[in-house]
């Protein structure tokens, strides 16, 4: 159920686009209305989520650390694992955001000889993760060719490197293949590791199927079905210049790709995909670990009504004396 529901949801989206465009001729709905609504939802949704996070107070230093904290001058501090200044935090965050450093420490527990639990390094998740994210970034940046006229100069540089193997025509872009391979690995990993499978929910599989669908339709369009790129660019340029047009002769597979991408964008703010913004806002990562240097006072501590011993004695002194309880003040 946790796998089949998102799987059929993506299949349904594919069929919806095919039937909508081929059967019902709803080109304007799938080519213009849905993409606009998706981009709008994406931008507003992400801002809303970030603002909501920003409203949550983080009164205490809860940075997770695994290195020596700043202490006596002759003990060497681990500045990246236990940052005590903003500069250290920036270094730590940069490594986290750009290189997924905490994932690099991913461990795998295994029972050896059915009694000894052994932990070993497991870099595959990190490798697939970083391959996936960077290829997706490059694929996204490459799409600028459909959204700018003239295209920015970085595009040609990117495509030269991406397609430098010069396999086939149109040139094979490595990132497309790496993206699909990495996302497939991430999916299979969820299936094959029992513990990971146990904790995986529909919300974990849905983005994976969606991205597999997006990458597959993209690759099919470029290498196999040869979509009319000029027609597609007419449509995309119409969208971004706010004067939408529906060109003739763009195949249904393009609308499938577009609907899946729109779904991904619209789904983004409501899902785990928000880790894009969340990674910057993780208090366990972005705080300085200086809990011994500075005392943090919880800002929403309300004034507590206290009854000190002096007041207590003042109030009950007579009764205490009668009961022969020793008092501090006579």
């Amino acid at each position, binding site marked *: 159920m946790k796998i089949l529901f998102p799987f059929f949801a993506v299949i349904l989206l594919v069929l919806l686009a095919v039937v909508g465009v081929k059967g019902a001729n709803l080109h304007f709905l799938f080519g213009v209305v849905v993409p606009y609504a998706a981009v709008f939802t994406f*931008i507003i949704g992400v801002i809303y989520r970030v603002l909501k996070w920003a409203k949550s107070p983080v009164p205490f230093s809860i940075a997770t650390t695994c290195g020596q904290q700043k202490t006596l001058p002759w003990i060497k501090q681990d500045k990246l694992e236990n940052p005590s200044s903003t500069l250290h935090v920036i270094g730590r965050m940069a490594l986290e955001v750009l290189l997924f450093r905490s994932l690099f420490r991913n461990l795998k527990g295994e029972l050896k000889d059915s009694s000894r639990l052994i932990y070993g390094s497991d870099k595959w998740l990190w490798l697939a993760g970083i391959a996936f994210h960077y290829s997706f970034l490059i694929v996204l940046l490459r799409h600028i060719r459909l959204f700018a006229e003239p295209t920015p100069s970085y595009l040609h540089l990117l495509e030269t490197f991406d397609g430098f193997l010069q396999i086939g025509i149109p040139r094979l872009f490595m990132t497309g293949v790496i993206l699909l391979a990495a996302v497939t690995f991430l999916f299979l990993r969820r299936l094959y590791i029992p513990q990971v499978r146990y904790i995986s929910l529909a919300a974990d599989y849905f983005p994976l199927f969606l991205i597999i669908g997006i990458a597959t339709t993209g690759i099919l369009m470029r290498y196999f079905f040869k979509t*009319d790129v000029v027609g597609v660019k007419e449509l995309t340029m119409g969208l971004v210049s706010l004067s939408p047009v529906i060109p003739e002769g763009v195949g249904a597979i393009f609308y499938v790709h577009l609907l899946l991408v729109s779904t991904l964008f619209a789904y983004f703010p409501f899902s785990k995909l928000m880790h894009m913004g969340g990674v*910057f806002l993780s208090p366990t990562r972005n705080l300085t670990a200086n809990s011994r240097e500075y005392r943090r006072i919880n800002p929403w501590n309300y004034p507590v009504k206290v009854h000190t011993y002096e007041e207590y004695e003042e109030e009950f002194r007579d009764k205490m004396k009668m009961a022969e309880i020793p008092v501090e003040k006579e």
Partner: protein
Amino acid sequence: MYDAGKIILGIVVFVLFATFPFYNNAGKVSAKPEPKLDTPVIQQLTEKKCVESKEFMKAEHMQLLNDWRDSAIREGKRVYINSEGKEFKISLQNTCMNCHSNKKEFCDKCHNYAAVKPYCWTCHIEPKEKQL
């Protein structure tokens, strides 16, 4: 809101990235490219037809050119037989460019629009076009 300065900076960067295509194209008009077919050689043709149908050429010309290259350069076969059984000499410069002598008005129109840079001209000599 806590850390308002940093949060707003982050949101501004995000919005600038996400809406780049919109403000980048604000006020610009981009016309659909219309490749020109009015070269002297084409005008003299009685039957204005490429080696294959227009639809096939539009979608598959790059594949065809790639096959032509392999066939001519690697296998030494210089004759192409099209879907109608007609024979053509396999040569970019003497067959394709004979009719489509207007690279700037034909090839480059769509290629520039779609930001495609084919590597034909790393081996072939780019035709020197007369100023029209």
